[in-house]
């Protein structure tokens, strides 16, 4: 593999890995804030125990999110120094602000939340978890501002003296139309992740008739959140598709493996065979793609061949087409998992209203592995949107091939790729094992300890 390919694999692995933990931090943090608010308002002990049980799982997840985040920030300089030189002026500020405005808030108040239960007033302690949640959402806004700029660069000019991007309007970066849709899409997806996490674990315990009251209540709150969030994700996703059709037509065409421009284009649900235009078998829903992309029954959707020709005329010779099978299946995986989440949460809400959730054992059995759905959707979504931008690292401005660090040796990139991947793999396995163990054990174990006064509240670690 070349240095470029190695660096890309490293970026992809680190990013997908990092984003396994981030959505749960955002989503579960938000739910913890709701649980603790319920505990504070009602004084019902079951909410307090719910908060502390899911809080423990939250912390296991949080640590890995933080440490992989440092790699995420540093790897721009390590592997993509040409990119960093070219865009630092525009891309650096949101990253710096993320640290200054969001990470400090998140980490400091999380420390207060974990260790401060006995030292802060209940109200102040409740405020700390809300601040953690706000901090995590703010950090998403900043990093997505940076990413959206890569998808659709705005608010800058190229400095003629240096040939590099120079920020001219930060407000334009923050109101980038890609950012507005991407932010809501990501935040809602993260909240859905947290909700399905709570639902999955609650379903597991409900199946065993363990702590029925606690988990019925937890699943109840999470089910409403899951329904609203996953419906919202789809709704915003639809808006996002329209923005994408306008700004990155190639990505939309690649998502559909649509080679020729069509009016009244159908949506391909599934393809067997190759994606190069001669499938063996396909299921297509007429007109749906046009409606999704343009909001009109017979709207025109441009195909890969036309866009390739246009971009070649505009940017010079070369391929401007991403890897179609990745975008096509990435998009389908994301949308498919998303619709499964909408379906499950609507059914769950219906059963809850009928007060039949705990007795619907088969449905509960489905909800446990459904915990994986948002993870699948999140990863597929990022792979789709980042791979769909190729060959560009900054759409229309800089190609990925020119972004890599020129003097870092192939051996070095190989060593760090292997090192990080190995480390990530081992830690993911340990993390999963710990989560499963603590999630399965349920809230009673730690509670008894606390009530017997054995666990020193100040000694949390």
């Amino acid at each position, binding site marked *: 593999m070349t240095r470029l390919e190695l660096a890309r694999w490293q970026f992809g692995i680190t990013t997908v890995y990092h984003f396994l933990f981030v959505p749960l931090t955002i989503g579960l943090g938000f739910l913890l804030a709701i649980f603790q608010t319920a505990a504070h308002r009602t004084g019902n002990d079951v909410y307090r125990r719910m908060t502390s049980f899911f809080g423990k799982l939250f912390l296991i997840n949080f640590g890995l999110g933080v440490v992989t985040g*440092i*790699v995420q920030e540093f790897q721009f300089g390590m592997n993509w120094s040409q990119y*960093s030189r070219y865009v*630092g002026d525009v891309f*650096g500020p949101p*990253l710096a602000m993320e640290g200054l405005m969001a990470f400090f808030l998140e980490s400091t108040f999380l*420390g207060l939340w974990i260790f401060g239960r006995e030292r802060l007033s209940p109200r102040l302690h409740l405020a700390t978890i809300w601040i953690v949640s706000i901090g995590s959402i703010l950090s998403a806004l900043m990093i997505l501002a940076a990413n959206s700029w890569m998808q659709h660069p705005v608010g800058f000019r190229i400095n003629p003296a240096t040939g590099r991007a*120079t920020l001219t309007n930060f407000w334009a970066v923050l109101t980038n139309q890609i950012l507005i849709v991407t932010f809501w899409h990501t935040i809602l997806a993260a909240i859905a992740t947290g909700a399905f996490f709570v639902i999955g674990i609650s379903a597991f315990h409900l199946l065993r008739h363990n702590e029925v009251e606690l988990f019925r209540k937890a699943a109840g709150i999470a089910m409403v959140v899951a329904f609203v969030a996953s419906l919202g994700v789809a709704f915003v996703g639809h808006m996002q598709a329209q923005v994408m059709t306008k700004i990155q037509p190639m990505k939309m065409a690649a998502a559909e493996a649509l080679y020729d421009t069509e009016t009244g284009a159908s949506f391909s649900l599934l393809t067997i065979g190759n994606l190069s235009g001669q499938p063996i078998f396909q299921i297509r829903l007429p007109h749906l793609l046009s409606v999704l992309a343009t909001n009109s029954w017979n709207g025109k959707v441009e195909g890969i061949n036309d866009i390739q020709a246009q971009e070649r005329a505009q940017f010079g010779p070369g391929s401007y087409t991403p890897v179609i099978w990745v975008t096509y299946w990435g998009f389908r995986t994301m949308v498919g998992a998303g619709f499964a989440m909408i379906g499950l949460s609507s059914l769950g809400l219906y059963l809850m209203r009928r007060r039949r959730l705990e007795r619907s054992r088969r449905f509960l059995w489905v909800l446990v592995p459904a915990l994986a759905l948002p993870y699948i959707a999140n990863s597929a979504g990022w792979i789709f949107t980042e791979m769909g931008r190729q060959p560009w690292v900054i759409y229309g401005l800089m190609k990925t091939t020119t972004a890599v660090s020129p003097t870092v040796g192939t051996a070095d990139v190989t060593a760090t790729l292997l090192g990080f991947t190995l480390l990530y793999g081992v830690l993911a396995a340990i993390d999963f094992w710990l989560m499963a163990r603590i999630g399965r054990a349920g809230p009673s174990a730690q509670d008894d300890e606390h009530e017997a006064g054995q666990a020193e509240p100040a*000694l949390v670690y």
Partner: protein
Amino acid sequence: MHHDWLAVAWFVGIALFWTGYFFLEGFDFGVGILLPVVGRDEAGRRVVVNTIGPFWDANEVWLIVAGGATFAAFPEWYATMFSGFYLPLFLILGALIMRGVAFEFRGKGADAGWRRLWDRSIFFGSLVPAVLWGVAWGNILRGVPIDAHHDFTGSLLDLLNPYALWAGLTTGLLFTLHGAVFLTLRTDGDVLQRARAVARRLAWPAALAVIGFLVWTYVNAERAAYLGLVPPLVPVAAMGAAIAVTWLVHERLEGWAFVGTALAIVLLIATIFLNLYPRVMVSSLGAANSLTIDNAASGHYTLRLMAIVAAIFTPLVLAYQGWTYWVFRTRVTSGRLAAQPPAPPPAPPPAPASHPAAQPSAPPAAQPSAPPAAQPASRPSAAGPATPGQ
């Protein structure tokens, strides 16, 4: 290119973020390094880890902000430094990963083998960055092969020169001492006694390392006929602080000793930056290739935007981080909370007598955040050991 005063301000800003990082994470690196020495048994190790429990994560954010601010204000510097120090940074990142997860994981397993694994990763995860950051900064100042395109063209061996290794030894020792003194302020009983003993034993080696590093820095600068802005006051004060600590730990004036180690760190970083000025990264292939404030900085708009954001948020961060140290000001003991006497009213350490003018601002969060200054006598350890594990 004209000299943009905002770029100079950001040079100072970056210096402050790194200073904040080394001052704060310095002691929690030290605490991590001393974990096997000071925490002899499980109860002791739990106390040691919990002294930095509420803080380490927020301390580490200073690094993220230092990195992010460098990216924003000096993209060239960020790109050259991070791609140039490729393998050391990989080791630092790996170490920080192992250390970060260890804090979360260690208490969540049942058996001793599990804890030993994570205690080891806290130890190495603290030791490796404590030393390698020194090596990295030694190299930034000494100069590394940087070509006309600002790309690092050397190899790992170029980074392992005696001066940079001495710098690594210096930060390693100084952070460990800083951590030992921090432990004397945050613990009680046996752990406190052992932390005191370590602090006394480490004070002289750390002071000698600091003195050696500063003298060597001066000699290097003299030889290169480049003294930067380095007025003797700052490095001499750094030596003074390091020497003062040797006496303060003997007299058990631990609040002051903490001020001393903090000052030594702050003044050491200040010396490096003053000697760098107006360069940000020195090229050993000729002065023309060096990265400077002028040729590495972002445009005026970005610098101004970031200056406004930093001016608003940095004081806010200092205030709430300082408040955290206030909330968790009582000593961590291995007994039950109920068995602990109520917290004594903390006396914040008085402001240091002489405040060197060259030091741009007070050490971040030092005054509001430092734990209660030297408490008169060591209280005997509170009753029984905690039941370890959850």
